[in-house]
């Protein structure tokens, strides 16, 4: 996502890096940025205001006369991006003896039902006891779909016969069932609807009033164009939504909707969907996203993905083997299979600082430059070896080599290359693995901190007060409680009307 924006920002800022900075070429650069934002489906007014704000700050004396104005401008863009998308509070508070209710809503086909499953899985993996409610009585096989998903993630689904029930009734009874069964989170899957369909919007409001969900989440397709802000606004006006979940970000959409929704509704994006599988949900971090947009990678997400997808015991075992120089081709195969669980190589590359453009270029070249294809080829080669050969590659002679090549549909020369590379690699790995964990962390941090600080010189000015994290949390909690109270009061008033 966002490649288009990244590239044009890169061009514009790169252009600025070249010559002497003047008000004129900053304005020109920013008008290119605006064009790119519009091509990425950013709302027209948001795009215009965004570039205007940057231009205004960037053409000030303070920036132009500073030592490194281009860095300052990157810093300004970063801050503006973060402000445009954030701040985000991902917390879903659980209260003892009370079922926390989350309600999903959105246009048809945006991804509500799938996201219900993803969110339930995420919460369950974190120790909660979720339950799903099939409140879509409208779309053919919607209940069945949620049931299948519930089965896949081993989360109970409450449903009723659509012929003798109503969405409101299912939700009310669903909460009762959750209480009885000791579940602590209830996720309501509602039917897709148009924001201009008064009758169906009223139905949602009824559920909202009756169940008073702790959070109402709008599920929004990331490929949406200029209409995104319109529907988000309408849903927000009807339901006072607490967050947006942006789905289908695993494609090549430039995701301009993401940059617009918060600006227009004031409601932040909380989660993003990055695949059809039920583990493809991530928390949305405006800072990280801003870094990615600026082409500076996202190591934090990469680490989290690794922690989630990789089998830590297996990894440790492999590490041990590397250190002892016992890392075999079989282990290599296992390591590759682990890597694959983290997602396509190119999407991983995009999270590494500086690699995004390379991955982008690979995208352009299509099939020829697909690192995953190489991985699959190497996999096939190793899989065509016997276990003995994998452990003792020196035994692979010419005839074995030919057999392996034939089995994997490759060339004997390819097998040779693989064996040579593997030999070189194991030496290096042994050295790396020999480093202490601390040393390695330091290395990673070094790369990370350089990459993660695009604000650079701007940072000092914007630094927050030095209050400790505990303090910050309590402030946030308090604010949150106040918001909750206000919301409930509002709703009570609404009902009285």
């Amino acid at each position, binding site marked *: 996502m966002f490649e288009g924006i990244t590239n044009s920002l890169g061009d514009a800022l790169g252009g600025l890096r070249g010559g002497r900075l003047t008000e004129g070429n900053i304005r020109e650069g920013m008008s290119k940025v605006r064009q790119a934002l519009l091509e990425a489906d950013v709302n027209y007014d948001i795009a215009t205001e965004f570039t205007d704000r940057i231009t205004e700050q960037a053409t000030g004396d303070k920036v132009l006369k500073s030592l490194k104005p281009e860095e300052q401008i990157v810093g300004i863009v970063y801050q503006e991006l973060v402000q445009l998308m954030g701040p985000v509070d991902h917390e879903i508070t659980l209260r003892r003896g009370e079922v926390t209710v989350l309600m999903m809503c959105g246009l048809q*086909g945006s991804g509500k039902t799938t996201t219900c499953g993803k969110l339930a899985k995420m919460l369950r993996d974190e120790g909660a006891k979720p339950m799903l409610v099939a409140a879509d009585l409208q779309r053919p096989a919607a209940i069945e779909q949620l049931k299948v998903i519930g089965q896949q993630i081993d989360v109970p689904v409450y449903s009723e016969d659509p012929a003798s029930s109503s969405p409101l009734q299912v939700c009310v009874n669903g909460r009762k069932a959750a209480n009885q069964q000791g579940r602590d989170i209830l996720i309501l899957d509602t039917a897709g609807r148009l924001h201009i369909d008064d009758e169906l919007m009223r139905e949602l409001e009824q559920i909202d009033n009756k169940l008073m969900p702790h959070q109402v989440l709008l599920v929004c397709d990331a490929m949406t164009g200029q209409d995104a802000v319109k529907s988000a606004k309408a849903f927000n006006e009807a339901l006072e939504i607490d967050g947006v979940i942006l789905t289908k970000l695993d494609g090549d959409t430039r995701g301009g909707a993401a940059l617009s929704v918060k600006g227009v509704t004031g409601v932040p994006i909380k989660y993003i969907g990055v695949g059809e599988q039920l583990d493809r949900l991530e928390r949305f971090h405006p800072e990280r996203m801003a870094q990615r947009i600026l082409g500076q990678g996202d190591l934090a997400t990469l680490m989290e993905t690794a922690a989630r997808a990789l089998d830590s015991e297996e990894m440790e075992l492999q590490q041990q083997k590397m250190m002892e120089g016992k890392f075999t081709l079989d282990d290599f195969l296992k390591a590759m299979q682990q890597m694959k669980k983290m997602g396509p190589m190119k999407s991983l590359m995009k999270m590494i600082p500086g690699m995004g453009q390379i991955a982008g270029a690979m995208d352009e070249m299509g099939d020829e430059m697909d690192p995953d294809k190489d991985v699959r080829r190497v996999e096939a080669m190793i899989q065509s070896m016997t276990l003995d050969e994998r452990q003792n590659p020196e035994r692979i002679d010419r005839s074995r080599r030919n057999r392996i090549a034939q089995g994997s549909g490759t060339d004997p020369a390819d097998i040779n290359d693989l064996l040579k590379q593997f030999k070189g690699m194991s030496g290096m790995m042994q050295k790396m693995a020999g480093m202490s964990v601390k040393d390695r962390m330091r290395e990673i941090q070094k790369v990370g901190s350089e990459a993660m600080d695009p604000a650079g010189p701007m940072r000092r000015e914007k630094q927050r007060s030095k209050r400790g994290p505990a303090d910050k949390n309590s402030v946030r909690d308090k604010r949150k409680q106040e918001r909750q109270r206000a919301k409930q009061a509002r709703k009570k008033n609404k009902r009285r009307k």
Partner: protein
Amino acid sequence: MGLFDKLKSALTKTKDVLRTDVRDLLKAGEILDEQNLEKFHRGLITTDMGVAAAGEIVDELKEKFGGRTVQPDEIWDIVKNKLKEILRGEGDCRWDITDPLSPLQMADEGLSVILVCGVNGAGKTTSIAKLASFLQKSGKTVLLAAGDTFRAAAVEQLTLWAGRLGCEIVTGEHEADPASVAYQGVDRALEAGADVAIIDTAGRLQTHQNLMQELGKIHRVIGNRLEGAPHETLLVLDATTGQNGLSQASKFSDAAGCTGIVLAKLDGTAKGGVVVAIRQQMGIPVKYVGVGEQLDDLELFSPDEFVDALFAET
């Protein structure tokens, strides 16, 4: 409700927004200056037609009318005609109101096969049901093949529609090879002497190369079973889609050679303007529009009415 009325009512809310955005921008007697052009540009962008197409129109207006006094009707005529011309194309597609099947390419005799593809949640399965109903009303016998063997309850969804339509359906196991389901679908349709077989496929994002290869394979396998098939490969496009629609049209065409578009969910506030850019750049025509979730909510596309309704006054 007649076709024009229905399309118009589907676009009513659209127009309300659009009117404030675009119609009111050009007031008789004003000068068409940079500021007015900028406002006009904004209005066009809001239809999702894209920066290129909008830019072209604004440039043309600037050249012809820049600095002159605005004659709204004259300007609107130019804009509308340009859009209609683009959407109509060069005679490669027919939309005959008296024959709702006119845009479809059908086999000269015997079975015609329609392959339906698109990104996740675009409206493929629902559009298939609607299209089948359309065909049935024209006296054709239809068979459906549930080629989405991946998504939870996708087969059940299409099966329910088949039940309502009273038409035959061919299904495979969950996670069965979709190409083999497609093959069996064509096979069975030939055997049963059906007029049209419609093949549903799983939603896929056009950047997932393995899934696009799978679609290519489905397309090939259908051709292996019946020469010249599929006769139509329809891309279902969600009308709310922005500029990503271009990438969808191009990559789905690469994989399966799209011959037409079904523009679904045009009953919302989205304008679906990206089809203008798609038609302009890739030549793929819109054949039908979806205006609701029920069986009857499919309409024959009409370039003229689409553009007129988009800019209609009330």
